[in-house]
């Protein structure tokens, strides 16, 4: 049987607002198998981003358990979480979040520098990934000289260059027009399959959910 990459059980998360606790997530159970392309839908404030932040180890949780690739993520300190993110998790953000002083090539190369990968291997891996997203000709451009679609392709390349087990994508098509959004979705699906990566995507976009293996809906912090 295909073991889940994400295995959440009874996850709860509260935020403090003044003197009161506001529940963001309540008793979330979620299992996402390797290579799956899973969308989480829900209105604003439903807890999608909080769920993705927990799965991406950007944020902690108050109750429940989280196993990533079979490994318990409870009680890890920030350094341990950072090192797991570095090796095993890629991120695609709604606003691309590319580093403006880095070229396309350097943005994609940065996660490999963090991994301490040798120069030759880095160069080969970056070139291969840029070719897969069709940006090899724009490798030396800075992000501010790219269109929105091109920027998101760079972000996808940056997320996948280290062949992560999990890619967290928060509204990856929200800022893109229809045609570009479709290209980006196809790209994510194609590269995900090629790298064996599991995608967990927060989205409102029906074009995106139409391409997902599974769509889960969150309402007021509760998984439907």
């Amino acid at each position, binding site marked *: 049987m295909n073991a889940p990459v994400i295995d959440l059980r009874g996850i709860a998360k509260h935020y403090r607002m003044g003197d009161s606790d506001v529940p963001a997530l309540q008793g979330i159970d979620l299992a996402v198998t390797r290579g799956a392309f899973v969308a989480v839908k829900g209105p604003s404030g439903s807890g999608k981003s909080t769920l993705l932040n927990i799965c991406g180890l950007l944020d902690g949780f108050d109750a429940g358990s989280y196993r990533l690739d079979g490994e318990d993520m409870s009680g890890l300190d920030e350094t341990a979480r950072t090192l797991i993110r570095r090796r095993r998790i890629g991120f695609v953000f709604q606003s691309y979040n590319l580093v403006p002083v880095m070229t396309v090539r350097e943005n994609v190369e940065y996660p490999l520098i*963090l991994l301490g990968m040798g120069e030759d291997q880095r160069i080969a891996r970056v070139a291969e990934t840029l070719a897969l997203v069709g940006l090899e000709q724009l490798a030396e451009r800075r992000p501010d000289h790219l269109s929105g679609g091109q920027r998101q392709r760079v972000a996808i390349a940056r997320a996948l260059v280290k062949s992560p087990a999990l890619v967290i994508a928060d509204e990856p098509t929200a800022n893109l027009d229809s045609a570009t959004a479709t290209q980006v979705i196809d790209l994510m699906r194609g590269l995900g399959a090629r790298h064996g990566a599991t995608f967990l995507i927060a989205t409102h976009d029906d074009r995106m959910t139409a391409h997902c293996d599974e769509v889960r809906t969150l309402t007021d912090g509760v998984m439907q």
Partner: protein
Amino acid sequence: MKAQLELLRFAWRNVLRNRRRSLATVIIAALGAAAIMIAGGFALYTYDALREGAAREFGHFTVAHREFFQRDEETPLQYGLENYRKLSAALEKDQRVTRVLPRLNFSGLISNGDKSMVFLGMGADARAEGAARGVFLKLLEGSLFGGDEPGAPRVLLGSALAKSLNAHPGTPLTLLTTTVEGSMNAVDVEVSGIVSTGWPEIDKRLVYAPLPAVQKLLLTDKVSALAVYLEDTAMTPAALADWQARDSIHTFKPWWEQAFYYQSVRALYNRIFGLLGIIIAVLVFFSVANTLSMAVVERTREIGTLRALGALPGEIVAGFAREGGLIGVLGVVIGMALAGLTTALLLGLDVQMPPPPGRSEGYPLKVYADPTIYAVAASVIVVLCIVAAWFVSRKASRKTIVEALGHV
């Protein structure tokens, strides 16, 4: 290695991100570095000039009777040197020694017939003293005298004393003093020249007279002490140690133990320049901290992104430290050029400093380009910039990633 260069390149691009702000910070770092280098170079020059002046005045070390510096003499030359010629000959055999000058200190009254003044005199060979003291003994009128000249003894007067006695070269005067036996004795002398030591208080009382004439006047064949001059002031500690080990009968006192002015000026300048250095350091620190704290705020979201990608807080701080270091290095390079240029300009221009307290003559404003001072100033500025960068970025690097990513 290549990865480190890449990270350095990113830091450089971040420095260039807000050029005007970075330029202002680099200029402050450059001015700070230049100020420390110039002030340090000026202090070194001043210490050097004062050291040479003191060493030329007292000799690199003085040889005297064991009690000479310990006790007050009840009668003149009670603790004088008796067989000084033999000791002088032994000292002159040391290859480091360039000259040994016997000196006999005495005091009394000097009169032109109408007016009498108290003087502090020295029996010496004025030509040898002049040669030893160089620019630190300025002959204003007349000529110096030798050690043993025929005829009436000739004397040198301090400029203020000469003015008080209305004396000029050729003017006859009378010296009245106490002999070693406690009786009074007098000798007629003729003014050979007028000198200035640069110290008004000394020039009011100073009389140089030929040593044989003074010995005859005091009825003694002793001298107060021997002033020993070396090839180089830097040789003093070693030569002194050798002679102290060789001769336990006499006292050997180095110039720095007699040069109280040098010690106090040095202590004063150390405090002044130390305080100046601290002020400059604080200015540079806050300037760099201000620039980088603005950069940190502007790049909070970027910091969140890098943290999400797997950068540890220390790696984020290291990135900012690289930027601070680059600002510091750039500032130091420009500062060195500024300091070098100022040093060269001052070498070419004859800029005079006003006389220091207690002195009558100014001195040229020069600045040493000292490699140690440059290295220390450069290190201090670069380290300060790195520390300022660390200081402002460490908090942001520990902000929660979710909060950082949500920063607008």
